[in-house]
């Protein structure tokens, strides 16, 4: 189509800028939510948290971010409808990016608790349903996504509840919790290594294997992931041997040394959290970008089965890293200072439960809210009588925020959609 040959470059540039801006926002604001628990429990310094976030957010985005990206890119809208009007899909995706970006900016400025995921999904559904036609939305898929928003916090809560209960029984309630902690914590480290390796093998490296003519069965992957898990556990055990019991710390709290052991575990769960977050949230920024790029590249052919160019995920991962470096460290410091009630033994349970949930969602291609999932996980630990005080009013307002975010994202995106169409004279 000549429209794309004429305007292709400028459309891609626009989309790349918006996508980068969104990714920057995720890095500046969202990552701090995922990592704040580690900083708050003093398991990591802000600098260490930033380093871990940079490496593992990027790895998560690049190795396991593909499924969610493809959902955002072509799962929510019904491509068939756009067959003879591909420019609408391009404008729509641009509007969605711009709408979600500006809504997030407004919300951050006003201090409202909103999620990137809800903004972008609302924006895409908005332009497709109102700007084009209600049939343009794949309502079945949208239904699944909305369901996953309800299920993910519950699942994370359940996992974290069980994790914390297991810690109670194996470690905290034993006669010698310090020794027991050193003995059992490598098992949790194994889970962290296994989880990341498994998702990477099953989802992230699928295409690499296909290109090289390699196939791995589920069992093969599980074996390799177990080996990775064992290696992680060995590394962890080595780090644990360096934690020596300091009796002077136990005068005030007999569990002070046990918490120091858990702090080592938290380094590992922080990695898994950053990986999980990268694998799910980067898609919010790069999914629409990927859609624009593939349509323009194929000259308007929507159904063309082009694989996503790797630079798109790189741009998303890069945007997050830049966001972290320019602003994220500040936010992380503020959040970390506020979360002082979460000790490492609880923080790890919340993080691991949330990370596992998010990674599973990433594997199935469901865009979920990392913050919601983490809030669910914290509540799970709270239900096991593990946390001093949780403000249910704030929990409610965080959970309810998506009810506002969906129409807001949709409305803005409809507005931008018609603006784009008018300014390109269509």
């Amino acid at each position, binding site marked *: 189509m000549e429209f794309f040959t004429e305007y292709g470059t400028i459309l891609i540039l626009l989309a790349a800028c918006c996508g980068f801006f969104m990714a920057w926002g995720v890095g500046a604001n969202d990552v701090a939510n995922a990592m704040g628990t580690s900083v708050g429990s003093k398991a990591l310094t802000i600098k260490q948290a930033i380093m871990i976030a940079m490496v593992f957010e990027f790895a998560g985005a690049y190795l396991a971010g593909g499924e969610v990206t493809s959902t955002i890119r072509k799962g929510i809208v019904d491509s068939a409808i756009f067959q003879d009007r591909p420019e609408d899909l391009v404008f729509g995706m641009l509007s969605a990016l711009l709408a979600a970006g500006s809504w997030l900016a407004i919300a951050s400025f006003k201090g409202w608790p909103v999620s990137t995921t809800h903004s972008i999904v609302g924006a895409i559904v908005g332009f497709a349903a109102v700007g084009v036609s209600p049939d343009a939305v794949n309502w079945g898929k949208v239904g699944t996504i909305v369901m996953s928003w309800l299920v993910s916090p519950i699942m994370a809560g359940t996992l974290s509840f069980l994790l914390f209960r297991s810690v109670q029984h194996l470690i905290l309630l034993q006669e010698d919790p310090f020794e027991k902690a050193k003995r059992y914590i490598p098992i949790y480290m194994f889970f962290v290594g296994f989880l990341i390796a498994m998702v990477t093998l099953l989802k992230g490296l699928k295409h690499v294997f296909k290109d090289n003519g390699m196939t791995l069965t589920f069992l093969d992957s599980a074996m390799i992931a177990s080996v990775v898990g064992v290696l992680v556990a060995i590394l962890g055990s080595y780090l644990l041997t360096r934690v020596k019991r300091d009796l002077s710390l136990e005068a005030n709290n007999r*569990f002070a040394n046990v918490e120091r052991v858990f702090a080592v575990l938290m380094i590992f769960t922080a990695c898994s959290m950053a990986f999980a977050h990268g694998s799910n949230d980067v898609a919010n920024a790069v999914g629409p970008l990927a859609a624009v790029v593939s349509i323009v590249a194929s000259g308007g052919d929507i159904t063309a089965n082009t694989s996503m160019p790797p630079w798109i995920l790189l741009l998303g991962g890069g945007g997050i890293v830049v966001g972290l470096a320019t602003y994220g460290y500040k*936010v992380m410091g503020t*959040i970390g200072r506020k979360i002082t009630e979460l000790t490492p033994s609880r923080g790890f349970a919340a993080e691991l439960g949330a990370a596992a949930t998010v990674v599973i969602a990433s594997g199935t291609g469901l865009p979920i809210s990392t913050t919601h999932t983490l809030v669910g996980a914290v509540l799970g630990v709270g239900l096991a009588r593990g946390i*001093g*005080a949780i403000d249910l009013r704030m929990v409610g307002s965080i959970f309810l925020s998506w009810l506002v975010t969906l129409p807001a994202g949709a409305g803005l995106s409809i507005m931008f959609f018609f603006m784009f169409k008018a300014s390109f004279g269509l």
Partner: protein
Amino acid sequence: MTLSNSISSIFGVSPIKPIQNHMAEVIKCVSKLEDFLNATFADDWVTAAEVFDQISADEQSADKLKKQFRMHMPKSLFMPVSRGDLLSIITQQDNIANLTKDICGIILGRQMAIPKALHADFIGFVGSSTVTCEKAHGAINELDELLETGFAGSEVKFVQKLIRELAAQEQKVDKKELKLRKKLFNLEADLPPVNVIFMYNIIDQIGALADTAEMIGNQVELLLAK
């Protein structure tokens, strides 16, 4: 850019540390009771007045802590222990400080001369009562360990043991109170009646210190119940 869209906003301030700080302040107050009495026994009303001022100051700062605690306990908090139990614990703790101040206030105001024959028993009685309060403090100090273990296991048994000791101590105080009352009864015919009434009053209130401490123990036990 404000940051209320963050996970940190869901964490309330844990009630454990503030309630422990309040109890520490209350104990500072009640532990001066013996010094105060010794000063009055030595007829040194200047020192007694000084100690009373310190006790008043401690009582006031405990009061401030109590008010702050209540301010930070909105109904929307989800805690491992019931909000009502915590609020009644802090009320009982505060009562100990109030009682201490009242006891000293009456003695100082009336320049109450307690008969020499009762001095030893009186000091013993006050000492035991103070120890009861300290034992309640011990139980309150375990709250952070209880939270750490999620209110389960051997830590619960340990706290239950502390509470049993607290109850036993309170019974000792009761026995000493009975003995002191009997001695006072034998002397009361020779003493000015109004003084005697106030002396009984003081004994009541010192006994009430131990009773209140025991009630704190009972409340902590309620926290342990699932």
